[in-house]
C-alpha cells in the first residue's frame, strides 16, 4: 500500500506505464469493481445503510486523527527507509498526506458538479415543457454551453505546445476572444454588479432600521460611526488637526490620546479585537465538539440519519 501512497515511480502493483494496455486493463477492471460495489450497496438491506455511512465517515477522519497523534519522522530525507513499526507508520502517514488531500479535492470537485447538474435538469425541463419562463431558462442553458465550449477551446489552445503565445492579445484567435468576452467582459462584470447591489440595501436598511432604542443599539451605532469616520482620512486629518492646534507643540502629549485615529486604534485593539476573539473562542469550542460528534456519527444530521 505504501507503493501507492508514496506514489513511487518504479513499477509497483498500483501503477503501470502510461498509455499501456496493462494500465487500461487495470483501470477498467477497477472501475467495474467499483460499479459492482455501488450496485451491491443499492441492493443492500436498509439496516446496512447507517453503518456504511458511519464507517466511511469514521475511516476518513481516522487518518487525520492518527496523523496528528502519531510521532512524525524527524529530518526525513528522500530515500530514507523507516526503522521499526513506529517509524514505518509515520512514513506511511506522511506519504499518504497529499493523497488524502487530493481525495477531498477530487470528491469535492465531483460533488460541485451536482449544482450544475441540478441547474441543467431544472432549466432543461422548463425549456422542454414550454414553461412560461422557458426563454430565461434557455438563456441560462445557452450561457452554460457557450462558456463551456469556448472555455475549453481557449484552454486547449493555451496548453498546446505549438502555436503563438497567447500572452499577447494580438495572437488571439476567435475562440480566445469569445472566452475573454464571456468571462472578463460579461461574467466578471455581472459578478461585481450583483455584489454591489448590497450597498443600496445596506443604506436603505440602515436608514429605516438602525435606531438607538437601547444601550446595545447605541453602543453598536457609536462604534460603527467611530470606525466609519476613522476610514475617512479627511475627517481624521481635520479632527486630529484640531487636537494638534490645541496641543501646540511638536512632541506627543496627553492630548494625542483624544485624536480620532488614536481613539479608533485603541477601540480596535482593546475592545473590538478581544470581543471578536471571545466570539472566535466560542465558535472554536463548538466546532471542536461538532467535529468530534460528526466524526463519530453521533450527530443526527442528514448525513448520519
Amino acid at each position, binding site marked *: 500500500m505504501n507503493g501507492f501512497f508514496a506514489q513511487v515511480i518504479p513499477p509497483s502493483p498500483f501503477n503501470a506505464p502510461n498509455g499501456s494496455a496493462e494500465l487500461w486493463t487495470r483501470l477498467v477492471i477497477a472501475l467495474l469493481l467499483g460499479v459492482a460495489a455501488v450496485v451491491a450497496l443499492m441492493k443492500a438491506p436498509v439496516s446496512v445503510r447507517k453503518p456504511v455511512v458511519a464507517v466511511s465517515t469514521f475511516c476518513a477522519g481516522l487518518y487525520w486523527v492518527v496523523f496528528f497523534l502519531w510521532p512524525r519522522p524527524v529530518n526525513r530525507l528522500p530515500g530514507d527507509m523507516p526503522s521499526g513499526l513506529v517509524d514505518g507508520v509515520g512514513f506511511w502517514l506522511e506519504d499518504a498526506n497529499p493523497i488524502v488531500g487530493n481525495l477531498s479535492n477530487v470528491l469535492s470537485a465531483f460533488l460541485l458538479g451536482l449544482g450544475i447538474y441540478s441547474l441543467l435538469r431544472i432549466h432543461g425541463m422548463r425549456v422542454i415543457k414550454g414553461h412560461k419562463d422557458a426563454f430565461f431558462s434557455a438563456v441560462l442553458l445557452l450561457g452554460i454551453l457557450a462558456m463551456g465550449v469556448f472555455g475549453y477551446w481557449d484552454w486547449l489552445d493555451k496548453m498546446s505546445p505549438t502555436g503563438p503565445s497567447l500572452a499577447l492579445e494580438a495572437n488571439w484567435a476567435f475562440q480566445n476572444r469569445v472566452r475573454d468576452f464571456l468571462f472578463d467582459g460579461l461574467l466578471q462584470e455581472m459578478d*461585481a454588479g450583483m455584489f454591489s447591489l448590497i450597498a443600496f440595501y445596506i443604506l*436603505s436598511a440602515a436608514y429605516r432600521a438602525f435606531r438607538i432604542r437601547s444601550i446595545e443599539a447605541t453602543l453598536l451605532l457609536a462604534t460603527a460611526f467611530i470606525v466609519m469616520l476613522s476610514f475617512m482620512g*479627511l475627517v481624521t486629518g481635520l479632527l486630529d488637526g484640531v487636537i494638534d492646534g490645541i496641543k501646540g507643540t511638536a512632541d506627543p502629549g496627553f492630548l494625542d490620546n483624544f485624536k480620532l485615529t488614536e481613539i479608533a486604534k485603541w477601540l*480596535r485593539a482593546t475592545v473590538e*479585537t478581544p470581543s471578536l*476573539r471571545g466570539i472566535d473562542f466560542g465558535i472554536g469550542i463548538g466546532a471542536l465538539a461538532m467535529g468530534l460528534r460528526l466524526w463519530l456519527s453521533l450527530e443526527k444530521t442528514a448525513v448520519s440519519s
Partner: protein
Amino acid sequence: METPVTPPAMGFAEKLMSVKRHTLYLLLIVATSVPTFFSITLPNKPDQPSIDFFTTVMALPEGSTILIETDWTKSTRGDSMGQMQALLRILMRHNIKFAIYSTADPAAPQVARDTIGRVSEERRAKGERPYVRWEDWVDLGYFPNSEATNNAIATNIRKAFAGKTEVPGVGQPATDVFRSPVLSHIQKVGDMPLLLVVTASKTFDIIVERLYGKVPLAAMVTGVMGPESTVYYASGQMVGLCVGLKGALDIERMMESGVNNPPDKPVVVNKKNPEVVPGFPGDDNEGNGKAYYPTLHLALTLMILAVIIGNIGMVLTRKGAKS
C-alpha cells in the same frame, strides 16, 4: 357615496423617517459617481497592520519565491484588485518570484492571471522587464478543498502540487512546475520567506490553522473580513495585514513615501521598527486606493447622515407623541 379621506399632512418628524428608498438609491448613485470624475488627493495615515505588511514585503530577498493564495474575483474588485495590483508592483520591482493558487472560487485563477498580465504590460509599456510566466511566476491552479490543499502544502509542498504542469514557452511541452526557476529550489513550504493570501472569504482562517508556524503569513482581505483577521494579526499569527480599500491606499502611499523616510521628517512612522524603508518615489504607485478614496468619503457621509436623520425623526416623533 363615501367622501375620500385625505390623510393628515406629515409632520417634519414623519417626513424625516419617510424618505423613499428610490430617493436614497439615487442619492447613493450620485454620491458614488460624481467624485470619480475628479482626481483628488486626500490625507491618509496608514495603520500599523498595513505598515507591517508593507515592510515585510519590501524586506523580501530579491529573487526569492513566495506563495500567494489568491481567492478573489471581480465581485470584490473594489477592494481586492487595488491590493493585488499594489502587491504585484512591489514584487515585480524587487524581482520576487511567486506561485499562485486558489481554493475559494473557480474563477479566481483567471482573474489573478489577468491582473498579473495587466501589471506586467504596464512594466513593458514603461520599458521595464515584463514578468514572464514560467520564469518569474507560475499558476498552480484551483483546488476545491481548501483544508486538504493547505494541509498538503504544510506537509509536503512538492507532493501537494505534484503533477501540475505549465508550458515553459512557445513550442515547448507542458512541464512539471517544480522544474521552473520559480519552484525548482523549493523543497518545503518553509523554504519560502512568506505566504500571502489575497482573499474575499474566510480562507485565511484555513491558512492560519494549517500553516501557522511553518511559514510567515500575511493577508490582504476585504473590509468585511477586516475585524476577524485583525484577531490573527493581534496574536502574532500574521506578520502583516492589509484591510479593504483603506489598506490598498495605505500601501500605495507607502510605496510613494516609504516608511520612516526621510529619517529626519518621516511621512509614515513605524512605531515598532525604526528601520528606514524607502519606497518607489515618483514611480507609478497609484491605483484603486487613490481613485476610490474621495468617493468613499462621500458615500460614508451619506450613510452617516441617513442614520442620523432616521434617528432624529424617531426622537422627534417620540417627543411629539409624549406631548
